């Protein structure tokens, strides 16, 4: 008589394995017996099945107490308890990815056979990693140990009507099983726990908590992770976008501001003029529309209080050249690190391109002024009207502990246009500055703006406001490729600006009727190095045409003027300058990177401040590499409801024509409406737990517990169903195999 005990879990097919082993022997003319222990436990609960094989009729109907061999179907059930009653020459057959030597201590002295049945079974389509069906695979392994041939195994599988993948799996297991007699003294089973006293039906103990720790049923368990939200990842200023949006959603605008001001002194500015790469990265774009982060930032800035500024406490003084976004950011962050800073600005007023290059209908002066003033309140000195040239810079590097240069883009790109009327051309950035100073009127003039960036759109819309008869933007690619903020383009079109796509100016001449711009029609070709399709001239006959105009404004972008830099110096990638004898000089913002956005300049200014701090103190404030980005596939989109994006209230287009009043009025609260909160509520909070309670609410066992500021899983009872993970909307919970 051979007796076997099979240790498995409910649903793993232990009883079927018993039947298969018995059947294999029955088909060879033996007597067999196979049965399981039926109890209350369900799928996943540890269970036992038994087999008896004999030459004669089997008359023993008791459970098996002293098996000749044992089989363990699930590696989480491998423990010394399986040695209970096992006869000394018996085999221990384990479903385990590890070979016999891994059990050298636990099962010392025993015959051990191992096979990675789970991998084999799953690779043959028998169940999933979460719920693998390993019984037929283990049969193949058992055959090697029990002196059954592969033919016996296959005959039994056919007899019990198991198909091809089972036979294939069994065969693979037969070939891959590892067998070994482990060295050492025979390990022994721990002694059985004493029996609980029997309770009577009227006893007080009736109603006590279950003694089963159902965590022992689990083959997987949930874990938590934090991923980087794509908006945070995409923010050049390094803002915790998700974090401030969450604060807005909780109507805690002060906290939203505190979060924003950690990384940027200019939330009010960015909330109005940032191109918002965060919104381009927003995973919600794949669901309906990206969260309107820009408006939320503005809302926070309009409604939140800034924390009281701290005053510098260090003695090392800093020079910051330029008061645009990079300079402001560098001065601000240096001040927050305790350094007294002096900002040098060539113009009379601070703000750089924010003041000169962005029309006030987009960025009102008081908003800019308030944010600059907050920077200054951190103990930042100003020397305005002081243009710094190369010699001055060298001097500063000997007077200050460090210098940050953020002078932006000084030179405008030109267009190679010939003709007799090129005197009517003007650079957009100069035009905007003149408009700002009230130096220009365009009564009835017809204006053509060349370019597709924000400056082009700003110039066009400004021209409209100062009386232009018509304003046309000509752009050599199509609208889809325009770098300008989409909403700005929309608003310009609403205001009457027209857009001529796929057009490149060639000549600006005069004829008897006045000036005319000869243009070339373009078409889109293969992508260039910027990733956008390359515009190439249309070769058809009527591809050239003339546009009448009084004035042409060029807005083709700007470049930095590096003439300020000392001779022999060079900007490294990180903004540091090489080859100088004085204090360290750092270059930042557009001046160093030509990124061309406010947000990038802010990030660059902060990074410059950290570089300086690290150089002076050795303290590294740069954060360690962040967690992986929460890609769209970790977001459980079907858990969200579609919700239209909340948009800013707009000044009516008719009211915009002749004024520089702010066009976009922000998210407007109504008596029953709180669009900022609604919009913040659209945030998926990708990869970051926001205490939404989904895991806690949907856990069938009730063992997700609030633990301080997060959640804890009570693994003692967790059955590993995975519902918390499937119901986590934002990829924070994942299941790990035990």
């Amino acid at each position, binding site marked *: 008589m051979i007796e076997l005990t099979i240790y498995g879990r409910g649903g793993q097919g232990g009883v079927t394995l018993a039947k298969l082993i018995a059947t294999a022997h029955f088909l060879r003319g033996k007597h067999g017996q196979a049965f399981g222990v039926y109890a*209350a436990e369900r*799928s996943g609960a540890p269970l036992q099945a038994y087999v008896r094989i004999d030459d004669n009729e089997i008359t023993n109907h008791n459970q098996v107490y002293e098996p000749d061999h044992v089989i363990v179907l699930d590696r989480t059930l491998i423990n010394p308890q399986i040695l209970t009653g096992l006869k000394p020459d018996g085999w221990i057959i384990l479903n385990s990815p590890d070979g016999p030597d891994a059990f050298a201590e636990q099962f010392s002295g025993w015959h051990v056979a191992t096979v990675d049945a789970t991998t084999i079974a799953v690779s043959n389509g028998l169940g999933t990693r979460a719920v693998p069906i390993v019984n037929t695979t283990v049969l193949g392994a058992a055959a090697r140990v029990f002196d059954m041939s592969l033919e016996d195994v296959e005959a039994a599988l056919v007899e019990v009507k198991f198909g091809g993948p089972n036979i294939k799996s069994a065969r693979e297991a037969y070939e891959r099983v590892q067998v070994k007699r482990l060295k050492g003294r025979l390990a022994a089973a721990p002694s059985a726990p004493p029996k609980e006293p029997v309770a009577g039906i009227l006893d007080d103990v009736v109603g006590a*908590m*279950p003694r*089963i720790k*159902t965590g022992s049923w689990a083959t997987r368990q949930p874990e938590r992770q934090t991923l980087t939200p794509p908006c945070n990842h995409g923010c050049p200023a390094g803002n915790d976008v998700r974090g401030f949006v969450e604060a807005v959603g909780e109507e805690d605008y002060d906290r939203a501001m505190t979060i924003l001001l950690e990384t940027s002194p200019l939330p009010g500015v960015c909330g109005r003029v940032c191109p918002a790469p965060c919104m381009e990265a927003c995973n919600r774009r794949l669901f309906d529309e990206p969260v309107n982060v820009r408006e939320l930032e503005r809302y926070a800035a309009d409604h939140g209080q800034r924390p009281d500024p701290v005053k510098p406490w260090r003695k090392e003084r800093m020079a910051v050249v330029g008061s645009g976004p990079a300079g402001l950011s560098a001065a601000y962050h240096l001040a927050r690190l305790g350094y007294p800073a002096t900002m040098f600005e060539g113009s009379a007023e601070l703000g750089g391109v924010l003041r000169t290059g962005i029309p006030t209908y987009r960025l009102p002066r008081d908003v800019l002024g308030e944010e600059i003033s907050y920077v200054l309140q951190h103990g930042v000195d100003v020397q305005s009207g002081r243009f710094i040239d190369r010699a001055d810079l060298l001097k500063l590097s000997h007077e200050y502990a460090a210098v940050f240069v953020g002078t932006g883009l000084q030179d405008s790109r030109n267009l190679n246009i010939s003709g007799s009327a090129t005197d009517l051309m003007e650079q957009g950035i100069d035009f905007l500055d003149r408009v700002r100073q009230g130096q220009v009127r365009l009564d009835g003039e017809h204006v053509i703006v060349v370019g597709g960036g924000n400056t082009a759109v700003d110039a066009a819309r400004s021209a409209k406001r100062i009386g232009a008869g018509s304003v046309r933007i000509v752009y050599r690619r199509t609208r889809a490729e325009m770098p300008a903020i989409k909403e700005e383009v929309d608003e310009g079109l609403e205001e009457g600006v027209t857009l001529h796509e796929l057009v490149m100016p060639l000549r600006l001449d005069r004829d008897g009727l006045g000036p005319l711009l000869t243009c070339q029609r373009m078409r889109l070709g293969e992508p260039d190095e910027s990733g956008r399709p390359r515009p190439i001239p249309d070769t058809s006959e009527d591809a050239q045409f003339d546009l009448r105009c009084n004035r042409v404004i060029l807005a083709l972008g700007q470049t930095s003027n590096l003439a300020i830099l000392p001779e022999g110096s060079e900007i490294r990638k990180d903004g540091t300058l090489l080859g100088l004898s004085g204090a360290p000089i750092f270059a930042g913002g557009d001046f160093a990177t030509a990124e061309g956005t406010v947000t990038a300049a802010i990030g660059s200014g902060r990074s410059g401040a950290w570089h300086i701090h690290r150089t002076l103190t050795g303290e590294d404030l740069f954060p360690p590499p962040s967690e992986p980005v929460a890609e769209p596939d970790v977001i459980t989109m*079907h858990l969200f409801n579609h919700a239209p994006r909340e948009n800013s209230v707009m000044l009516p287009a008719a009211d915009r024509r002749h004024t520089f009043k702010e066009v976009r009025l922000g998210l407007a609260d109504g008596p029953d409406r709180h669009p900022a909160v609604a919009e913040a509520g659209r945030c998926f909070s990708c990869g970051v737990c926001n205490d939404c309670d989904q895991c806690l609410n949907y856990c069938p066992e009730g063992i997700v517990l609030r633990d301080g500021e997060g959640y804890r899983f009570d693994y003692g009872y967790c059955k590993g169903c*995975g519902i918390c993970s499937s119901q986590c909307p934002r990829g924070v919970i994942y299941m790990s195999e035990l």
Partner: protein
Amino acid sequence: MSTVASPEELYCHNVLRPGNTNCAGCGMSIGLRWLDEALDGEKPTMVIPACCGIVTAGAFPTTAYGVPTAASTFASAAAVASGVSAVYALNGEPDVVVCWTGDGGTYDIGVATLSAAAERNDDILYICYDNEIYGNTGGQRSSATPELAVTSTTTKGKSERKKDMMAIMAGHRIPYAATLSVAHREDFLRKIRTARKTSGFRFLLTLSPCPTGWKSDPEESVDLIRHAVRSGLFPLYEIFDGIRYRLNERPDGTPVEEYVTRQRRYTKVPTDAAPLKSYIEDQWRYLDAMAKAFPMEGA
């Protein structure tokens, strides 16, 4: 310093305690937890017939139910609850008496008892967790099993449609009947609270995912029910006094295949799922007609 609470402190008074013997991913467990929550601290008396729900309790003398619980014979849940409820009423005790039953005990063997208690309008909150199968006995068909589902007694797929238990209960003109989804938490909690505030016989039907019987991934249990509701297969609605209808959520175009292809019990459903789609269509034609003819005020 923080001290970790013992399981007794954490869970002892839960309606459903951890350590219960339900399968991983069992929908009943979610239902029991939400029942507990929606009762807002009030502890129900449970009456549970022979079904998975009583096996849940585990072995004597321990129990996974942290509230007074009576196991009844298979067909008797509503009648036992009538007895309990009557005596509570005689003694002026406000405790809510909950029948927690499977579909076998509701649609089949217990239907006469249920009908009688409903007709008497006894003060009982009757909740059927319908997993559309005799799960406790190994997965045989019940009259709640949907068309084409494979069970151990319908190996070629069930040839009959599911019994419309809600219509039967509406025919009793009970004060409140509603369907509940374990994927629609707020709706579920609201309906339990509505039922709790209503006196007389209240019938709640929740489609209860059963990974073991449905041959589905435990982790998809909740998602399956969400798909069932969104596809229109399991409509969420309420019937007041048996004659006033309120439909809570309309199908949103989710294809029923999202539901069907995730369960191996549905291997006999044709790839276009046409029979289920026609079932959905019929069901909604009926519900829409009822809701139009007999609307609940304010619906």
